[in-house]
């Protein structure tokens, strides 16, 4: 190992070290012909929870690996708590970075007990102290009584919590999580996600979570970083990124839009089903108009903006998914309406469209 690396091995001891910030600057990484990251920069403040969101292959996991020191990028720098850990001539190996990393498959050591797993990162401490910390960590996730069991004896949710306890036991300044909830089934996912985030908030750890699920990202992140093909598309709070998507891609990622061709002029866009004042302005000329399904509501006859015929209606429990054919559009509009209000298929429906749910984008962005 090089001098630089050994110089960094003075890893902070187990006790909580306090949250650290993460700064990633101009990171580029290619794998053969594919560009995984194209000069990406991102700052995560100490104590902040940031979600890297995007489809498979967008570079979000590569970014996490670069931060963890598992991947050495082709170019760029990484600072953790102000200390350069990746950069020209500098590469601190993962064991000396003081980070926690959680994997989608949890990566529990199958040959070690639960408590052995949690103690793994505490090997530099005296045995009794390590034991105490591991116990406390397991207590925090409610699994203290499983200490002598082996990973395969636990359910998926329990394994996830062991992985969390193990990652947090050495008191990392930052916790990196790669799709930590995606191996859980739908029912337990939400409750475990909430528990996990609560724990993390208590320990005030900086947290970077990779996910492809927009709902998950919105429910846990202070800030969402939306990525696509190795670049950051948009960064913002969940509300900002949802309500003011910078691109059609961002809008589509969070919402299943009704997309209609339109023509923008001034503050208005003209479409075959009427003119709207979109949530944000777009340059004059041909444009693409997106209408959120929940922006469409039923109104009593006479007050409607638009009239259509219900084509199909599906009961989804909390809402009805309704398709409404409207004159001038090739495809029916789909809408999410409160349960029990939509007319039966074949009947006429008067609808109104909330301008706050209408987005407009320049035509050339439609890729």
């Amino acid at each position: 190992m090089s001098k630089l690396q050994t110089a960094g091995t003075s890893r902070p001891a187990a006790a909580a070290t306090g949250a650290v910030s993460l700064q990633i600057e101009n990171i580029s990484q290619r794998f053969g012909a594919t560009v995984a990251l194209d000069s990406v920069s991102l700052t995560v403040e100490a104590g902040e929870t940031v979600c890297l969101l995007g489809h498979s292959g967008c570079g979000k996991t590569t970014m996490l690996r670069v931060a963890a020191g598992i991947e050495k990028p082709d170019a760029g720098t990484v600072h953790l708590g102000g200390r350069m850990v990746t950069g020209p001539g500098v590469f601190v190996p993962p064991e000396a970075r003081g980070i926690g990393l959680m994997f989608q498959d949890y990566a529990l050591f199958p040959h070690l007990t639960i408590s052995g797993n949690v103690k793994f990162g505490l090997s530099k401490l005296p045995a009794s102290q390590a034991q105490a910390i591991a116990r406390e960590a397991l207590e925090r996730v409610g699994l203290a009584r499983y200490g002598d069991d082996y990973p395969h004896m636990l359910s998926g949710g329990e394994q996830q919590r062991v992985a969390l306890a193990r990652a947090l036991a050495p008191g990392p300044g930052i916790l990196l999580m790669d799709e930590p909830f995606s191996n859980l089934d739908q029912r337990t996912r939400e409750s475990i996600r909430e528990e996990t985030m609560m724990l993390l908030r208590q320990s005030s750890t900086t947290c970077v979570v990779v996910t492809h699920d927009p709902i998950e990202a919105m429910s846990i992140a202070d800030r969402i970083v939306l990525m696509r093909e190795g670049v950051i598309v948009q960064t913002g709070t969940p509300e900002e990124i949802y309500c003011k998507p910078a691109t059609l891609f961002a809008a589509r990622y969070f919402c299943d839009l009704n997309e209609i061709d339109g023509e923008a002029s001034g503050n208005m866009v003209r479409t075959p089903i009427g003119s709207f004042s979109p949530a944000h302005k777009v340059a004059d000329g041909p444009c693409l108009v997106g209408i959120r399904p929940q922006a469409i509501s039923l109104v009593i006859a006479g007050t409607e903006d638009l009239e259509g015929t219900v084509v199909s209606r599906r009961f989804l429990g909390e809402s009805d998914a309704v398709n409404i054919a409207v004159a001038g559009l090739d495809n029916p509009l789909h809408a999410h309406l409160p349960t029990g209000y939509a007319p039966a298929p074949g009947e006429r429906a008067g609808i109104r469209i909330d301008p706050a749910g209408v987005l407009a984008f320049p035509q050339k962005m439609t890729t």
Partner: protein
Amino acid sequence: MNITWTGAALFGHKGERRWLLLSALVAALVAAPVIALAIIAAQGSGDLWPHILHNVFPFALRDTMLLLTGVGIITITIGAGLAWLLTAYEFPARRVFEWALLLPLAVPTYIVAYVYLDLLHPTGPVQGTLRAILGITNPRDLWFPEVRSMAGCIFLLSFVLYPYVYLSTRAMFLMQAGSILEVARTLGASRRRVFFSVALPLARPAIAVGASLALMEALNDIGASEFLGIQTMSVSIYATWVNRTNLPGAAQIALAMLALVVSLILLERWARRRQRYVSMAQRARRATPLKLTGMRAALAILIASVPVTFGFLMPAAYLVVEAWKRIHQAGISAEVWHAIFNTMSMAVAATLVAVVIGFFVAYTARLLRSQSSDALLRISSLGYAVPGTVLAIGLLTPLAAFDNALADVIETLFNVSPGLIVTGTGAALIYAYVVRFLAISAGGVESGLAKLPVSLDYASRTLGETAGGTIRRVHLPLLRPAIGAAALLIFVDCMKELPATLLLRPLNFETLATQLYGEAARGVYEDGSVAALAIVLFGLVPVIVLARLSRRPALAHDALAQGRTAGIEAGLLQGEPAGYSPPPAER
């Protein structure tokens, strides 16, 4: 999202280069004999070459090809046939046959020949009993097929080599989706047609793997062919060197034999070019077997008994009886004790070295995940495909040169003559064993590592453990079974090894195998049965392990094939290593 992480980052460039350099050194040591062979062969054998070209080579090639063809046909017929019998049908004692059919693996080819030569000798027990039944007194009046013949050699080798085909094919039949076979039935195909038009074509890759392993063994054999009077290439190489002391001539035949090995490997790869497609059906449920009763069940039992009887029960029973007689009469001689000690010490030393180096090479390939580290792993596993005689001829010259140089240096420095340090001490033998069986440990560790998600490595590293600590605390404990199995296989293979041992052992150094060979070649049957029994008993240990694993077919196939096919795959460098995912790409 399963991601193949690159390990390079974890080592930094210096560490990475060091691992790679050491791997390259291992690969160079493995490749050295083959390169040396080419150089020796190029020197020409002078006056003797026309003789070899006209009187040795054509016959050696013809006999070898005949032998391989015969063994190929018979092992495939027996192996694939039995595999189908035991998976598609249910009959009494089927579960016993499942493992019993593996037993002949414990009997090396030279021992089966040794045994049957005596058993079928005109004055031996078989013909004697026949004459007694028929009332013939003169041995010449009884016609009996000559065992010292090509046909005899083919049958004897096939009876101990078919388990390779049986094991791989059976694993494939069990892994084939039962639904595929059942759907064929619902489409109106008879069981017979299902076998020939669905199961067999789908199993072709497995048959190819098994058959190529069997043929490698046949090619490697020296004892059986020699005893039975078949002038195969292995035998010719040995004779050309030992009797005519013509090293270039031996090297030339050896090179030709190497070409044969390469074509065998190419054939095997060609035959399983669709394996990817076949292995789609992995989490398969076995098709419901047809229950046989009455005569049909009896027939099934009879069919399954034949290979076990000829391949294992008869030879084992013969050896037990003969060895007991011998021990009863003369006790266990000092020569046998010596041979046991020699065999054990060589095998233990070679196993240790092979396991350590194999672990190292496979681990480097996992860490670096680069094309060069993978290629080095392939080269390091090449030795398995190189027949023992070929390897020995390739090693003789470089080792002797090394010895002389070393002796010169020591003599100049210390003014004492150290003798032959490598070739005189058995170090050469250990070297040859390691080269030959490195594929087993490297392949075993490689497939063991492939089953460990790389996220474990990174979990360990981010929890503050170093690279070395991760090996010690995570990988070694998890790989213990894989390493243990590899060590066992290597140990037993070293014990049984004959061709390279014959050529590379120090003077007057006998192992169990060479002692047996010596007696059989001289036509005396003294301690040979004791030595042979010892070899077979040791050989049973891995077979028992394999038999236990074979209840879980995929595992048994892994254990047998991965170490060995790794060696075969190694022959073609462009091949992807077994169990590897393609290079890193985020999915």
